[in-house]
């Protein structure tokens, strides 16, 4: 196991390096400049671009990039927050998104699993149909519709919650209250996702012989389900729940915009649109790192959840 993990970690470094390198060239091959003042004289524009080595051959720029990259320094932002270090930007932005996402996670995992179990146990009965329809509604209706409707009816018309998230930096009660609607809006999708997989997997497990055995040994349906069937359903579930944990660092573009949360949601899109290469590369690197770690954890979790599976084992 330890050897496997070590092997994977080494490979991860290589993969990361490849991702970052390929992305570097892809990003820089986009046409356009970070200077968006169309009236600026050409030579002035060129002089400013020269300062950031943007007119040199790509391979040379790549060299400059690597020099800083080995120290995990992505340099300073050139468009999104000019002159501010990229890592510092992320360090201020990520916690803002995380604050909302953690609550959404705390809400959606238990609710999703419980709904899923309930639906599976009552398969093809009324609760199952109601839950299934809700799940599908949550998955299929775009999040901006939910977010806008929540904001319009609950915050604006009824006045139960503030329209936008308050500006306090620490987590106070009033801040939490103002975060309720975005938390809800964020949770619907993940609740639905978890519930649907739980249900699907459980339905399969409930038909198996070991359940029959468990029940014949005198376990109740609920006991048998939670202790035996659930455990067998965790493998596919790990595939979606573990990424949710690591995903709390990302933000939702639409929901953050609607509730005015200054989080990560728009950073990548804005960085790409503004040709802010340092920020784009920084975001890309840190998120790839988290993503790769997630995949590793998911893979390892297979073996923990079901000892029969030997990760890395051959055919």
């Amino acid at each position, binding site marked *: 196991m330890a050897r496997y993990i070590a092997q994977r970690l080494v490979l991860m470094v290589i993969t990361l390096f490849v991702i970052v390198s390929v992305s570097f060239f892809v990003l820089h091959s986009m046409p356009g400049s970070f200077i968006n003042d169309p009236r600026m004289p050409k030579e002035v524009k060129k002089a400013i671009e020269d300062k950031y080595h943007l007119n040199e051959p790509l391979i040379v720029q790549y060299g400059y990039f690597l020099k800083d990259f080995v120290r995990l320094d992505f340099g300073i932002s050139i468009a999104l927050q*000019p002159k501010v270090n990229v890592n510092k930007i992320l360090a201020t932005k990520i916690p803002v998104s995380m604050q909302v996402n953690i609550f959404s996670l705390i809400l959606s995992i238990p609710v999703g699993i419980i709904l899923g179990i309930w639906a599976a146990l009552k398969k093809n009965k009324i609760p199952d149909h109601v839950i299934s329809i809700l799940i599908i509604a949550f998955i299929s209706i775009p999040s901006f519709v939910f977010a806008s409707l929540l904001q319009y009816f609950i915050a604006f018309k009824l006045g139960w919650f503030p329209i936008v998230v308050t500006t306090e930096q620490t987590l106070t009660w009033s801040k939490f209250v103002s975060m309720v609607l975005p938390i809800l809006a964020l949770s619907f999708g993940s609740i639905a996702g978890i519930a649907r997989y739980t249900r699907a997997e459980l339905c399969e497990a409930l038909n198996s012989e070991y359940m029959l055995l468990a029940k014949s040994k005198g376990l109740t349906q609920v006991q048998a389900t939670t202790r035996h069937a659930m455990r067998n359903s965790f493998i596919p579930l790990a595939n979606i729940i573990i990424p949710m944990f690591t995903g709390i660092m990302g933000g939702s573009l639409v929901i953050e915009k609607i509730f005015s949360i200054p989080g990560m949601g728009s950073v990548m899109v804005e960085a790409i649109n503004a040709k802010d290469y340092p920020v784009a590369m920084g975001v890309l690197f840190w998120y790839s790192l988290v993503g790769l770690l997630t995949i590793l954890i998911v893979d390892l979790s297979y073996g923990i959840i079901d000892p029969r599976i030997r990760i890395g084992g051959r055919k």
Partner: protein
Amino acid sequence: MKRFLLLLVIATLLCSTLAGCGNKDVDSEVGSQEVADELDEAKENEPVVYRTTGSKTVTLNPHIYQTTAESDTMSYIFGNLLAIVYDEETENYKFIGDHAVDLPTRNEDGTVWTFKLREGLKWDDGTPLNARDYEYSYKMLMDPKLKNSRGPQVFDADVVVVNAKKYWDGECEWEDVGIKALDDYTLEITLEFPVPEVDFYLTFTGGGATSPVQEKVYEAGMNEDRTETNYGTSKETTPSSGAYKLEEWIRDQMKVYVKNEYSPIKDIYTVDRVESRVVEDENTRVQLFENNDIDAVGLSGANYDKYAEDPRLVFSKSTTVWSMFINMASEDKPFLRDVNFRKALFYAMDRKTIAEDIFKTAKPAPYVVSSFKIAVPSKGLTYRETEAAKSVLPQNDGYDLELAKEYFDKAYEAYGKKMEVEIQYFDNSENMKRVAELLEQDYENLFGADRIDIQLRAVPWNNAYDNMEEGKYDLGFGGWAGGVFNPWSSMEVYTQGFTSKIDQFKSDEFDELYRRTVKGDLIFKEQERIEALAKMEKILLDEVPFVPMYEPEGASMYHDRIELITKGKYLPGVGFGTLQSHFAPLE
């Protein structure tokens, strides 16, 4: 499963602790409410608060800022030599001295200007501010190593300071540049060529690139090679010198400004405290306004309908005339080179529908120079109000289908086969897409789908401009903003010498007129200058390198408690004069 139960328990615990804190909070709020009731009588003396929304500001370094959100903030917190304010007597704008005692004096030919600064000026932290700070700031603005993007403001704009460009390029010493602090209170600026007063004033008015920066903060934020500074990247690195100071700045979320006690012009403004929140979603803004959480809100076309008859509406103006540019030098589509074809497009342009039905608040504009631009600054007279401008204006907003067909027939005859053209529009604008869709239908219906085929293509906006610069387009939307007070220098974008030219128009006659009105003999000849401008406009309308479409107007609403000092009129330089307006106390 146990683990999940544990999670649930933690969650519940967490929520209940939060709820616990909350109760305390509520209590204290009730307490403060009572205090507030007691102090009700003292409400008259309460600070006047203006609550508004804005966009993100990416930087508050005056040497590199780019967006209007940033210049709005800078107008609050950065002072300058002069200020422009609303004058109740003339009911118009007025230039006054801010850090300068009064308006500058000039030598006879208008190339050397001298500012006298007030004594005892201070930064918001109480440290002194004088002419040396200004000299340092301008030195940094043009610093060859920093390569600040606002540097061109003093060598490629209305005002060109002697040797400024050379210094920026690193080709001369600072001593050679035409900016000198003669003593602590005198600043002398030498220009390459004379300019009219208003252009010079404007360069040194209001918070922006020519505002002073505080040396100790600017230097402290420098990196080792002196190529970057973190000035203006956080509240700590943004000293204020304007009528307000930055009290709080949470990036991408909110800013709070309060009156700066050291500002010499602070008493002109009635508002004591400005709270500005970043809200990017338009519907959210409108709801905040309706909910009385903010005092003013801008409305776009989609939301405008609902408030079209609301008495709180006011309209702001723009210096841009949006146009459809035509690649009149097209290699592979010779009919684009045919002026008859371009005129056909001009006369078939349904500007009224575009302005009123798509943009809702825009005005049809069959002309080049926006109706907001001032031609006679002393009287506040706009160019479009002059006789010369009226003489070049086409009939009926330039909408004449018969004429359009006539021109098209000629062009079609000359070309002889089906014309295929592509309109490129910005991918981030629904309205632009609608205009493109409308034009496709209008042109194809009028000229016949068998004779002209129009394709549409969405392009990211900066790529769209690049395409136009490189001549890789057929038709494409674009527009130039420019100074309100100088419609002449705005014509630079159509001259052959302009390096970021997006049209393919070339005329020596036009260039000569431009030179004479901006740098030549006509500068101080008011009437002839206006006539020359009309002539330039006429040349453009005859050649049709682009088809002018509309002039946007921004609709916004102010809360009942605000009595706008301009009575809802939008004036150059001061807008609605919000900060000078009368605010009834907040309920």
